[in-house]
């Protein structure tokens, strides 16, 4: 099994309920957000003050698109990669990949704050908490899932624009692994598990004539 987020950009409202639900559940310090609702067309990692992405340039980025400002989004957190760089690089085993669910967990109590994962993750998913001098990231609410609940972000989304799927289920085979219009390392060797449904503009749009 490989649990994964399926994010549906065609219905996502950009309401940020999911991202705040995560803070509500775990109380990330001000300045740290594990889930970010990324704006298509406008956003790049530079504005995310918590990301250190020296490696990003060596990855192929998703194609740029021109869509209306502040209207289309992908809600992203850790990609729970099949081949996670964070797990590979962590010298103390704070990052682990659950063999059963495929969830990439981070145990902050073991973390020594070396920042290796923050640098190694091609997606800026592992965050550095400067107040604590340790890393932190989305662990797919594994404690909640173990209890039969869904994740805080999924439960909170008013339109089911994020769902959790098992990537190894053949019915999800055709889903796209590449987003559009956001900085995202689409060919990363870490094999991110997140899947995307692309947004589209309304079929009919009428705007007032100029002049």
């Amino acid at each position: 099994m490989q649990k994964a987020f399926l994010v549906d950009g065609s219905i996502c409202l950009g309401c940020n309920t999911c991202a705040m639900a995560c803070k509500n559940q775990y109380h990330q310090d001000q300045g740290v957000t594990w889930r970010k609702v990324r704006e298509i067309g406008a956003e790049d990692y530079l504005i995310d003050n918590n990301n250190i992405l020296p490696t990003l340039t060596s990855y192929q980025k998703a194609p740029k698109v021109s869509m209306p400002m502040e209207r289309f989004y992908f809600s992203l957190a850790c990609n729970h990669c099949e081949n996670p760089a964070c797990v590979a690089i962590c010298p103390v085993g704070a990052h682990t990949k659950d063999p059963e669910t495929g969830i990439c967990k981070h145990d902050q109590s073991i973390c020594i704050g070396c920042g290796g994962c923050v640098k190694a993750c091609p997606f800026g998913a592992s965050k550095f908490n400067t107040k604590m001098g340790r890393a932190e990231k989305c662990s797919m609410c594994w404690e909640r899932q173990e209890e039969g609940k869904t994740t805080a972000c999924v439960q909170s989304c008013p339109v089911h624009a994020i769902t959790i799927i098992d990537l190894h289920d053949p019915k999800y085979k055709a889903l796209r692994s590449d987003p559009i219009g956001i900085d995202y390392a689409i060919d990363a060797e870490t094999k991110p598990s997140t899947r995307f449904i692309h947004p589209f503009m309304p079929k009919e749009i009428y705007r007032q004539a100029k002049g």
Partner: protein
Amino acid sequence: MSYSKAKVEEILNNTISRRSFLKGLAASGVLSALPGGVLEANEDLNTKIPYSGEKSYQTFRNACPRNCYDTCSIKTYVKDGVMQFIEGATESTYTRGGCCVKGNSYVKRVYSARRLKYPMMQVGGKGSGTWKRISWDQAIDIIAKKLLEMKKEDGTLLGAALTKYSGNFGITHYGIEGMFNSIGYTTRLAGTPCWPAGIDAQNLDMGDMWCNDPEEMKDSKFIILWGVNPAANSIHSMKYIYEAKRKGAKVVVIDPIFTETASKSSQYVQIKTGTDGLLALGMAKIIIDAKLHDQKWLDANTKGYKEYKAYLDKEVKLDDVSNVTGIPLAMIKELALSFAKAKPATIWMGYGMQRHTNGGSMIRAIDALVAVSGNIGKYAGGARYGHLNTWGFNYAALSQAKPEGSVGYSGPEGAKGEFAQVGGEKAAYTDRFLNINKTARELMSAKEPKVRLLWVACKNVFAQDFDRNQLIRAFQQLDLVVVADQFFNETAKWADIVLPVTTQFEEYDVNVSYWHYWLSINEQAIKPLFEIKSDLEIAAMLSKRMNQLQAGSCTFPQSVDTKEMTIKEFNPAIYEQFGIQSWEELKKGPVKAKAVIPFADGKFKTPSGKFELYSDKAQELFGSALPKYLEVRQPYDKFRMTSPHSRWSLHSQFQNLEWMEDFHPEPFVYINPDDAEAKMVSSDDMVAVFNRQGVLRLRAKVTDNVQKGTVLMYEQHYHNSIYNVNELVDDTSSDMGAFKTGAPGVALHDTFVNFKKL
């Protein structure tokens, strides 16, 4: 492990012991139970709190009491007396397990370091910034003595004014008005800045403002979202709209702005601002000409169809409709005919549209369009605006007797507001009503007696009222301004005394929505922090002190329990409507009112008992019996400024929180590319936006989400920022509102500005 309230307070008040307290918790393993990050713990401590399993928490039922369509039912998780996290109630099919970005920030709101903690007095004078902490006894004593002194000097208490609005829409919060009722006849800032023109319009047409259950929209075949943006402001409604769309319904958004909702629609139609009424009239004409109107329903259920049709025939020219609205005629025809053919079809009208000088007339025109199409009184149909159908509580906290011998105002009585129209007894005197939408002006001009004391509750006057510069003058001439709030906001800065009030998690209450049909109990989940008290407790303290100073001078109970006050709000009719035996059942989760289709029985509470296309009342009050097209206010500056609600805040609430700053740190002005080019402005430039009312400086975003000739700034209020879009808004009235809410609304979106690059 648990701590007494006194102990926790002592610790939180003292930085050093707070640190050791948190460390102590870490050592004892309880830290995981304490939101270290939330309490601003020292940086050595782990701020991540894990989810420790459903059974490890105590849970409570709450509700979001803000002025929001969604009024979410909340489940609150508490451990060792500390709120850990919240979830939307899963029992409500409307809330469906989740709140919004604002609701999900509640834990931070409760434990924010920015919260007001103690009563304070601005000893250096209003706006001086020199504050002193005072005790509750001192604060209440000053206020009580001032009231009694005024009563002695003026012979009445009309010099005492209350301004309260939508900061907390919980039913027991009408106890704040109750507090003012209980001291005598006083002055009230009456009316509503929110939705009054539309309320009047719907009452004139249908004798009530009453909308179908939003959950029915899933079965609508055609949905017009007219000037409403649920994707940002009623996110829980979107699932029904999506479901309808998935089942093949057409979802059309008519809006001057390409909104979040427009981006998810089947068709977006950009209209010239303030011309919606004419579009509705034109569509009705097209439908009638094509014989697609519901003649049978109109004959049986309307008054004045003949006059209305004659007006359409004679005065409404389709070419004019197209020119004025800026929408091609072919598109209008297509839209009208497909709307008329789909059954059931519905129109949801937003509150922005009626914030124009012709706002009420536009809502009337759209109501008429829905009537013509035969969709009034139908499942999944309806002219949706809002409703107060589930608000039939006792208003026990509100209803307080006047002290014996009270002297008041003997002028004509106006309505008191849209929610709690409790009245009945015709007394010799009444309260004095001032127009809430002209607060500054009215506070200054009220005479005999002049206003000397102002009590502000559930309201941030400086954020939500208009013309800040006048407001400062008005506040400065008052003897005593009391502000009861949770945060040290702009209004508090112009107060003499601030009183810290509880969040909904620290008190009992009961909540319903003006949109959906669910009922939630709001339990006290945690003890009030610091010295914070509920509005009701404050009223009780005031009553106790006033009675000590002068027996019989205040009738409010001298001690209250918010739970007991909440129980008193229930009655058999509420139980019947919601199908419960007792309020205690609500502890198991929210319940929904029994389904009723508004006006399905063809009974309207209008004078004629019918849907009034022709209304004598409208003729009498507003000079037009028919929903005639009325031209919108003429520009007085270069660009129209529109100030809709943002997804990040509810009026002046939420945007000020630390967590919200992580997602949305600063305001922007949105400018159309053509206008930006003419002014040589690009995205991220700092610009000044100004008019005769004031000036704001902020960063620009260039986007064709706004149409040429219009700039958009959200109504938002930041921590430590003077940004306030209402600084640019004058207090020009909308056409309607005085009929049902006591005062006309404000034509907020008829504001005009200019801008330049800085």
